[in-house]
C-alpha cells in the first residue's frame, strides 16, 4: 500500500463524517445560501476542530461568493477547498538532512501524544531508505519509557543510547549525538518525555536538551518535530505556540489520524503559528506513517463529495 493510500485510509472516516453532514445541507438539488445555511455550514466546519477563526474565514468566503444565490454542492465545495488549500499551502517539506555527519531529529510533545511510537515509525522509514539509525532515550522520567524505546530499537534493528532512570535527559541526548557522530550514523532521533506546554521547568529542560545537542553539532537538531494527537482540540494551538517558543520546532507529526478525529486543529495552527505538518500517523505499527501533503489532505477531505456531486442529494 502506498503512503498516500494509508494517509487517505486515515482520512476516510473523517471524510465520511464530514460528507454526511455536507449532504444533509443539500437535501434537494441546490440550496439558497442564507444565514441559516451559513450557520449549518459553520457547524459542520467547526466539528473538524479547525477552530473558530479558520471556520469563520471559510464561512465568510462562501457568504461573499454565494449569498442570496441558489447553488450546487460542488460550487461550495470548490470554495472550501480553495480556501483550505490556501490556508494550508506549504513546501512539501520532508526531513532536512545534514550536509555531512548525522542528521539529528529531536521529538517533543505533550504527554501521550505519540512521540515514542512516531520515532519508531520514522526510524523504520529511514531504515527502509537504507540509512543507519540511532535512537536516544531522552525520556528518563516516565515509567518504562526507556524500555518502550528499547523494544522498538530491537524490533527495528537500530542502535540505542539510554541513560539511567533519573539521568538528565540533556546528557542522554548529548551522548546519543556523540555516539552517532563517532559511529557515523546517518540519523539520530532523540525522544523526550511528554510535557504540558504550561510546565515552565519542563519546557526549560527541553531548551536545555536542544542546547546540549548543539554543543556537539552546531546546526543540529536539523529537525525538531512536535507530535500532535489528532484528537486534540484547540489546545493544539497553545501546544504549537509554546513548544515553538522553547525549541526551534520545524514541523508537526500528526499522530492518531486513523480514528474519527479530523485533526483539523492543524489548520488553526498553520494560521496562527505557521508550523507545517510533515507526517501523519495512521496506526500503532512501525509502518503506519505517511508524508503529509496539503493538497491531498484537502482533496481527500472532500473527495467523496465531489464524486457524488452531480445531483448530490443523498
Amino acid at each position: 500500500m502506498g503512503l498516500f493510500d494509508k494517509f487517505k485510509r486515515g482520512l476516510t472516516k473523517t471524510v465520511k463524517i464530514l460528507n454526511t453532514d455536507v449532504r444533509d445541507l443539500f437535501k434537494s438539488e441546490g440550496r439558497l445560501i442564507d444565514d441559516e445555511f451559513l450557520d449549518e455550514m459553520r457547524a459542520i466546519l467547526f466539528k473538524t476542530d479547525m477552530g473558530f477563526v479558520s471556520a469563520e474565514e471559510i464561512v465568510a468566503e462562501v457568504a461573499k461568493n454565494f449569498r442570496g444565490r441558489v447553488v450546487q454542492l460542488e460550487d461550495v465545495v470548490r470554495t472550501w477547498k480553495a480556501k483550505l488549500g490556501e490556508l494550508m499551502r506549504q513546501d512539501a517539506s520532508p526531513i532536512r538532512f545534514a550536509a555531512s555527519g548525522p542528521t539529528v531529529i529531536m521529538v517533543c510533545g505533550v504527554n501521550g501524544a505519540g512521540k515514542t511510537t512516531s520515532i519508531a515509525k520514522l526510524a523504520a522509514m529511514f531504515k527502509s531508505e537504507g540509512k543507519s539509525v540511532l535512537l536516544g532515550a531522552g525520556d528518563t522520567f516516565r515509567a518504562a519509557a526507556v524500555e518502550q524505546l528499547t523494544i522498538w530499537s530491537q524490533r527495528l534493528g537500530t542502535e540505542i543510547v539510554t541513560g539511567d532512570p533519573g539521568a538528565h535527559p540533556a546528557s542522554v541526548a548529548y551522548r546519543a549525538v556523540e555516539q552517532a557522530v563517532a559511529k557515523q550514523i546517518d540519523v539520530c532521533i532523540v525522544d523526550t518525555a511528554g510535557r504540558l506546554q504550561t510546565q515552565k521547568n519542563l519546557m526549560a529542560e527541553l531548551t536545555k536538551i536542544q542546547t546540549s545537542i548543539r554543543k556537539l553539532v552546531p546546526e543540529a537538531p536539523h529537525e525538531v518535530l512536535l507530535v500532535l494527537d489528532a484528537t486534540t482540540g484547540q489546545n493544539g494551538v497553545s501546544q504549537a505556540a509554546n513548544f515553538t517558543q522553547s525549541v526551534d520546532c520545524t514541523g508537526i507529526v500528526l499522530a492518531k489520524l486513523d480514528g474519527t478525529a479530523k485533526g483539523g486543529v492543524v489548520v488553526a495552527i498553520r494560521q496562527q503559528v505557521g508550523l507545517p505538518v510533515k507526517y501523519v500517523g495512521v496506526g500503532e505499527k512501525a509502518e503506519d506513517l505517511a508524508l503529509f501533503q496539503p493538497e491531498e489532505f484537502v482533496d481527500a477531505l472532500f473527495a467523496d463529495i465531489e464524486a457524488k456531486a452531480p445531483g448530490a442529494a443523498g
Partner: protein
Amino acid sequence: MFEALQDGLSGAFKTLRGQGKLSESNMRDGLKLVERSLLEADVSFPVVRDFMKRITDESVGEAVLKSLNPSQQVVGVVYQALIDFMGPVDHSLHLKGKNELTVLMMCGLQGSGKTTTSGKLGRLLKAAGRSPLMVACDLQRPAAIDQLHIIGEQLDVPVFSDRTQKDPVAVTKAAQAHAKKIGADVLILDTAGRLHVDEALMEELKRVDRQAMPDQVLLVIDSMTGQDAVNSAKAFNDALELDGVILTKLDGDARGGAALSVKHVTGVPIKFIGVGEHLDALEEFHPDRMAGRILGQGDILTLVEKAQREFDQDEMLAQEERLKKGEFTLDDFRKQMGQISRLGPLQKVMGMIPGMGSLMKHLDDVDAEQGMKRMLGIVDSMTADEKRNPTKVIDQNRRRRIASGAGVEPHEVNELVKQFSAMSQVMTAMAGKGVKDRMKMVRELQTGAMSNPAGQLTRQKQSSGKRLSPQEKAKLKKQREKELRKRRRDGKGGK
C-alpha cells in the same frame, strides 16, 4: 485548569455588562459570545447548541424584563446550567466489602492516561486501607507491562501480569484467581488503548468485560480532546456501559470543554480528574467548582461593580481622601476586609480576582474564612496608635500582646504588618487614579501573589491547624476583653 474558558467567558460578559438595561437582542449578542467561548473551549458543537438553547430559554423574556441587573442574572443562569450539565456527581467507586472482590476496569483511547490513572487509583485505594491488585491487560503497547510493574513498585501495590499470554481475557481470568490467593479486594484492570472504531479491539474489550464482570467501568479521557470526545465517549459507552469518566491532564491550560460534552452526551458521571503525572495527582471532580471557576473567572470588574454597590459610599470617599494624602492605616485595612467579607463567601469573592482562583484551590471556604477572621482579630487587638503606625510602633512586646489578644502566634502579627505595609504602598499609589490604572495595579499585585503561591494563605492554613484547648481559649478571651476595655478607655479606637 479552566482558566482559558474563564477568559473567554470573561470577555463575553464584558460586552454584556455596562449596557444598562439589556434588550432581548443585545443579550443574544452576549450569548453568542458565550457560545463562541464554549466552542473555543472545545465543547462539542451539538452540546453547545443544547446548552445555548437552554440558557436562552431561561434568560430571554421574563428575566430580562424583570431583572434590574440582567448581566448578573445571565451569569447566574449560565453558571447554574454549567453545573447542571456537568452534574450530578458521584465520586464513589462503589466498592464492595473487603471480603469480596471489587473489579474496576479502565478503558479509553491510546495515550489518554489509563495506566497512570490505574496507579493513581491503586494508591488511593491502598491509602483507604484496601488491598488493590493491578492487572496488566495491555499486551499490545511495547513495555506496557513494565510500565505497570514500575508503577506498582513505586506504590508498593502488587501487579499481576503474564508475559507469555496473548489474550487479555486469559490474563483477566488468571488475575481473578490470583486476587483470591493473595487476598486482594480490588482488581484494577489496565487495558490497552484502542480506537472506538477498531471493531476487533472493541470486541476484545467486550470479552474482557464479560470475563471480569467489572463493578465499575471507567473511561479515561484526555482533557485536551476536541470535538471528537463525544464520538469516542459515546462509542465506549455503547460498547461497555460506562460507570464513570476520569478526565486527565487538567494540569495544563486545556479549556477542558470535554467535561461538558462527555457528561451531556453519555450521562456518565465524571468521577475524578488527573492533574499531573505523579501518582498522587488525582482529585475528585466537582461540577460546582468547575462551573464556579468557569464563571468566577478573573472577572474583576464584576467584583468592583459589586463592591461599589455594597461599599459604604461615604466611607469610600473618606478613605479616598486619606489615601490621597498618603494615609492608609490598619483601620482602613480592617474596614476594607470587613467590607469584602460582606460581599459573600470569601472563596467566591476571591475567585473573581484574576489569578486568585488557582490560589484558592488550596483552601476550602472554612480555611479562608478563618484566615480572614484571624486577620481581623489581630487588627482588633491593636491600640489606635498601633493601627495608625504599625511598622514604627509595634515592637516585640506589643507583638506578643497583640498575638495573645487575638489568639494567634506572634509571627502572624508580623506577617500581617508586612503585608499591610506592602498593600498600603499600593493603595496610596492608587489613590486618585482611574479604575483602569487601579485594575492594572491590582493585577500586578496578584502576579506577585501568584509567584509566591505558598505565601500567606497557605501558611495560615497550617497555623490554623493548631487547635487551642478550651482552657487556653478562655484565657485568651479574658485577655482580649481586658484589651478591649483598655482600648475603650483610650477613647480614640477607630471602631
